[in-house]
């Protein structure tokens, strides 16, 4: 049996090039968005959405996961997604500390004046 036949790497160079073109186009969209005045939460949602699409393209085609067994995909992907989502548990606390900070402060902190010579 020809060993190389068993080592077939699915996907043609044409397919990989078209994935690369999509990745470049999505990057250009991100750069374009950088100079649009949008509310920060909308900007963040769009940018993260584009990043997730780009990551999915890289994982599926370049890292070949689309062509692997479903058992490998189910082992690697869901637990990573769950763990990353669990990190968000800390996030609401950032708004709390934002509320606390500078609340009773009237001016920007300045460096303490040097001690005067006796």
């Amino acid at each position: 049996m020809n060993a190389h036949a068993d080592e077939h790497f699915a996907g043609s160079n044409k397919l990989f090039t078209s994935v690369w073109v999509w990745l470049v186009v999505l990057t250009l969209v991100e750069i374009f968005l950088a100079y649009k005045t949008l509310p920060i939460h909308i900007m963040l949602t769009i940018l993260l959405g584009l990043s997730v699409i780009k990551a999915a393209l890289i994982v599926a085609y370049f890292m070949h996961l689309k062509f692997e067994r479903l058992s490998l995909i189910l082992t690697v992907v869901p637990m990573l997604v769950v763990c990353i989502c669990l990190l968000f548990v800390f996030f609401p606390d950032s708004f709390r500390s934002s509320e606390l900070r500078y609340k009773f402060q009237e001016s920007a902190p300045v460096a303490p004046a040097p001690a005067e010579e006796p």
Partner: protein
Amino acid sequence: MSTEARAGHFPAIDWNGGAFPYRVGHRKLGMWLFIVSDSLTFSALLMGYAYLRASNNWPTPFPFYPSIVFSSVMTFCLLSSSLTMVFGVSASSKGDKAKARKWILATIFFGLAFIVLHLIEWNHLISEGLRPFYLPEHWAKVFTLADGTPPTSLFGATFFAITGLHMFHVATGAIYLLVVAARVKKLKHEDIEISGLYWHFVDLVWMFVFPLIYIMSVDMHGALGH
């Protein structure tokens, strides 16, 4: 024959998984697990960055030139390096190791270009006065809010930590690929595919670092007079 190829010859027994339930060799599975753990490292760092950003007055200092132009060209370099790497793995799967080596060398070239551009960009920020725990004086003045809230000095810490760790991964990947390119004829196809997995992961991480660190911190109104 690679472990991956041999896996196909084992009969599916017991729970239909056979000896190789994932139909990949142990090294490739190991790389996948490493990638998952490394993804969590970067996720935690980016989450820490998001936390600090939401709870502080965050400066947005990056000018179109050089920061955004450089980081965009760096993104292009990494994307192109992923394409050349996948061409290399594809050539290796067809048994054309000489062609695979050429594509891997092209990948290293793009990786090194990324590092050089990134170091120039770092140098630009350092020469402006940015340090891990200090902002340049003029940034501190410009980005102080009307109520006197100063910008956080942790900007430099998150910037250098996240981009520095990523640059370290690119440098490590370039060395890894150099070894693979030197020994390409002795290595099995699966080994080359594993090195490709690592390289694509480095590219993938940058797809999050670039928009979150650079695009979200553009100096849109030329506040710093660039």
